[in-house]
């Protein structure tokens, strides 16, 4: 099983033309990954815990104004700046999925990775999460509940990647495109988010990453993200 996983390259494509900033992915991520809510005071301090946030920039002035939305999550860099700076290997590259993983029980909380992430994709557990009974009933048993003092970030729903691989193994077949759907892609009404294995030639994302609209966030930093964005389109009628 482990051998079969070698050489996978999980890649996410986000079509900015389709994103409507409806926040469904943000809430789905909270639900799937046991991401706690922190309350207004903490948000005011800049400690929102969202693994996935939709950044909104303004372009132009009234009345020719447009919002530019860009969902930002961990870019799962192939040359991740967070990895070399961690003194305890809590932030490390996973060879099986070719993504960047955070080992919660290894993390000592230096937060260096957070400083070094150019995408600000990492969030820190400043306090213990609080799930008053019976809200804790909802917690996903496939995902660790993180305690105070550890960094966390988007995992591409690695539990779903594993579940998909296990299911494929049980059925005695290779992993197919569409076997693994992370929570954000699953919920996205406009299908703006697609996850696929770049190593799989038949995957849907193959044509996306070849698109002329494809770009990586802060490409010049050389981090080689595994999240590819498709630029928003422009239509002009006059």
């Amino acid at each position, binding site marked *: 099983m482990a051998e079969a996983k070698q050489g996978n390259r999980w890649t996410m494509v986000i079509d900015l033309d389709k994103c409507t900033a409806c926040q469904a992915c943000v809430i789905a991520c909270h639900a799937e990954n046991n991401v706690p809510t922190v309350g207004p005071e903490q948000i005011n301090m800049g400690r929102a815990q969202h693994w996935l946030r939709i950044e909104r920039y303004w372009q132009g002035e009234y009345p020719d104004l447009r919002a530019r939305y860009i969902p930002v999550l961990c870019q799962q860099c192939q040359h991740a700046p967070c990895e070399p*700076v*961690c003194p305890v290997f809590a932030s490390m590259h996973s060879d099986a999925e070719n993504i960047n993983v955070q080992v919660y029980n290894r993390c*000592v909380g*230096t937060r*260096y990775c957070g400083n070094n992430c*150019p995408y*600000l994709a990492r969030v820190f557990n400043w306090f213990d999460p609080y799930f008053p009974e019976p809200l804790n009933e909802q917690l996903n048993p496939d995902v660790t509940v993180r305690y105070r*003092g550890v960094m966390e970030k988007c995992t591409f729903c690695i539990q779903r990647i594993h579940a998909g691989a296990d299911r494929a193994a049980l059925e005695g077949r290779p992993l197919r495109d569409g076997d693994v759907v992370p929570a954000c892609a699953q919920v996205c009404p406009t299908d703006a988010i697609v996850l696929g294995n770049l190593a799989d030639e038949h995957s849907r994302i193959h044509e996306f990453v070849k698109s002329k609209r494809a770009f990586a966030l802060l490409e010049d930093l050389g981090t080689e993200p595994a999240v590819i964005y498709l630029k928003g389109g422009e239509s002009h009628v006059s």
Partner: protein
Amino acid sequence: MLAELPRKFGWPHEDNPQERLLLDPLPQEDMNRIMLRPMLKAGSGWWLVVALLSAIVLVCFVGAWAYMIRWGMGLAGIRRPVFWGVFIATMVFWIGISHSGTFVSAILRVFNAEYRRPITRAAELMTSFSLICAGMFPFIHLGRVWTVYYMIPMPNQRQLWTNFQSPLAWDLFAITTYLIGSTLYVYLPMIPDLAMARDHTTGWRHTLYKWLSLGWRGVEYEWHYLHMAIKIFAFAIIPVMFSVHTIVSWDFAMSMHIGWHSSIFGPYFVVGAIFSGVSAVITVLLVVRRTMHLEYFLRPEHFDALAKLVLIFSLAWTYFFFNDYLVEWYGGDWVGHQLLLFQARGPVAPLWYAMLLFNIAIPCLTLWNKRIRRSPIALFLITVGINIGMYLERYIIIPGFLHINNMPFDWGNYNPEWPEVSIAFGTLALFILLYTLASKFIPLIPVWEVLEGQLSHTRRRIGRTVVTSVAELE
């Protein structure tokens, strides 16, 4: 050859030899008495100070830290994107202070700067004590301090190892090496003085000093080995000192963050550290001299010489500061430009201007003047100001620069919260407390070194002029 240098440049205040410690000898016993008197007598004032400092350390440092461990890092004001704040700034500050001792003692020793003799001990103690303060911050700032041993490379069943690529791992080793090295370096020259104290005390103090002085008798081979050991350490500790602050600067320079990823950070930080360290030495010596009545040992000539060092390092620091600014400006990165504007106009602007005032304007405009260099009050104010300015520099570089990044949506303002300020203040109290306690247990002036200097210095009349001659010691 190096020994020639001080002679070549002449001695300060040749006109009045009585001002100079090494030309104004006292019998050894008298010097011992001057040193031991404040050590053996603990007045109510001293007890009061110790009690007060202990209370501050207990409440502000231990208490606040325990509270923070219990509830989480969130009690500090740090946030995304400013993940490092007062803690790391204070750590860098204390590491900077720690450079004083080694610089003043080891480098001046290597260069045979004779005026170093009475001030080495006080400076070296500062190194150890400030390193203790600095070394605590990597623990304090950890989200999960109870798992700190993960950072130590030790065999375990999971075959997990420390990441030697991480500047934080380098930090750990550099600080530990420096702490051990500098503690040994302060201890070695202390042995003869501890033996002196042993011979002049009774009771538990005698027992203590007996143990600490390792049976020193003062026979010739002992002196021979001591000198050799001190010399080895003096040479060895200098590269360690430079590496420590370079490595600390790499915590920032090795990252990808705008304003941090600068190749000049190594020397910039070292110069800044020595600048603040030497200033701190002056501040501490002024306090020690006043409270322990050591006017015989610590004379205006010493402060004059140290103040000149401060002036030189102020200029050097200014160069590096400007250089760092210029490179960022010339780089032309749009966020980098914003970072520069942010320093002059953003929320840290008052701190930035205060830093320029304390670090450049005041020292450069005042320390040219010999009278100011020799005035204890002026020097005290200037050097305290420099350390405030250097603290502000670290604050601006660490949390300040983190305000701005490549994702303008995620810029963020950082305001320190009380636990951070309290813990930082607590370490200041801890530093003073350690020093206060040390003043009763450790002879702050290396009497034997002064004596040695005095023995080698004589004044001779050559023709009409009287010149100082220094004999080579064997």
